[in-house]
């Protein structure tokens, strides 16, 4: 068996007296797609932000490809380059075109030359099916298109793992399909992904593993089949009943 790409061990996160994560452990293998489900406020998004150190954990340790990224003295910017992140609200850079959004990380962070960066950025936009929108500004794109540009921007950094924080929650229902299709394609290409989502259909079809979180802990995890059809915990069952209605 190969070594895991990501290992999370007993991660805690609190803001003042508010405990959001109360000891989360999770291991992700290369090429695996893990979907995190759970009620809002259960700590799913916080966990993602802990993983890429946007909000470093208050306790616990995280290893990315055998390197402990929570160790003191780790260059957090370098870590984030290896972890792609897609946000619920897209967070595209308003002052840059779609192409510019993908290029800026290549030029400023990966220090690529401009024309080289432009070629790669075009390639990434093609990958998400938006080469023809390269010169549009975010305000001129639909929500689904914005999210696909955001995915291309993350892909441009050549991440080893991608984190998706409710990527379709801010979209009109008719626009979620195009984003999910891109994510499915990524998964089939072998990208390791952790996805926080309420899209149960996507979880069933694409995920290798589903983890149910509540109150800052992982209550249970398993294959989609196990978790959706034979959940062990009553809390998981209650949540699934609620969401299936």
């Amino acid at each position, binding site marked *: 068996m190969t070594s895991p790409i990501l290992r999370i061990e007993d991660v805690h996160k609190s803001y003042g007296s508010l405990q959001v994560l109360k000891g989360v452990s999770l291991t992700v293998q290369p090429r695996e797609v893990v979907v995190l489900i759970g009620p809002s406020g259960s700590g799913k998004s916080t966990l993602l932000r802990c993983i890429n150190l946007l909000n470093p954990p208050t306790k616990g340790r995280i290893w990315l490809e055998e390197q402990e990224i929570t160790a003191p003295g780790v260059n957090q*910017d*370098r870590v984030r380059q290896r972890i792609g*992140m897609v*946000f619920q609200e897209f*967070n595209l850079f308003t002052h840059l075109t779609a192409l510019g959004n993908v290029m800026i*990380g290549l030029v400023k*962070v990966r220090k690529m030359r401009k024309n080289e960066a432009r070629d790669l950025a075009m390639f990434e936009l093609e990958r998400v099916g938006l080469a023809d929108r390269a010169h549009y500004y975010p*305000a001129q794109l639909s929500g689904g298109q914005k999210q696909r540009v*955001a995915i291309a921007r*993350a892909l441009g950094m050549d991440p080893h793992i991608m984190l998706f924080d409710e990527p379709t929650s801010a979209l009109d229902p008719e626009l979620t399909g195009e984003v999910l299709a891109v994510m499915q394609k990524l998964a089939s290409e072998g990208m390791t992904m952790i996805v926080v989502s309420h899209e149960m259909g996507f979880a069933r079809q694409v995920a290798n593993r589903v983890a149910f979180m509540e109150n800052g802990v992982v209550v249970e995890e398993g294959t989609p089949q196990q978790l959706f059809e034979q959940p062990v915990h009553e809390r998981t069952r209650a949540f699934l009943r609620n969401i299936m209605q």
Partner: protein
Amino acid sequence: MQDFIDLLNRVTPDLLQGTMVTLQIAAVSLVLGMIVGLPVGVGQVYGPVWVQRILGAYVTLFQGTPLLIQLFVVYYGLPDVGITLGRLQAAFLTLGLNSAAYQAEYLRSALQSVSEGQMTAARAIGMNTRQAIWSVILPQALRLALPAWSNEAVAMLKYTSVVFLIAVPDLMGQAKILASRYFAPIQIYLIVAVFYIVLVGIAYLILTLIERRLRIPGLTGDAR
């Protein structure tokens, strides 16, 4: 009427000379204001608390007091403590520092209106804070601040007129000399008013053109 045209012919060369001084002072002050105002605005948002305090005090001092008195402190007061400046130097320095306070303030509120997600996204692709401020936050903030900056530029153009009170020969300075030379203050100052209207009009047109040029869909800081 003929008298008025004669007067106009006689005073125009001097007034044009004054106009050049006015434009020079406005331009230097705005540029100096930008050079000082940019770091002050950024420091007020991203600096450590003690830096924010000091910069805030600077902005309050210059925004809370009349430009004319600031000019008098610099030109008449500073020699008292060993700093003697020429009239033009004093004008450049005072108007520049004054404009910097206003420009910093516009930049500060523009920086604060850039949504937090922009910083988060920049950090997420591996930028450090400095890179994120420089290549993501600041370019957006500058565009958002542009309408306010245009207003400041026009205001500065008009406010240069106080420098004649320390005997700088700007448009107003020339007017004062001419008014007593020809004993026709009302006519002369009316002509000067027309000069200012033309200057402000041209400045307004140029600034509108620049704003249109730099417009980005979804990024408008229409303060008006």
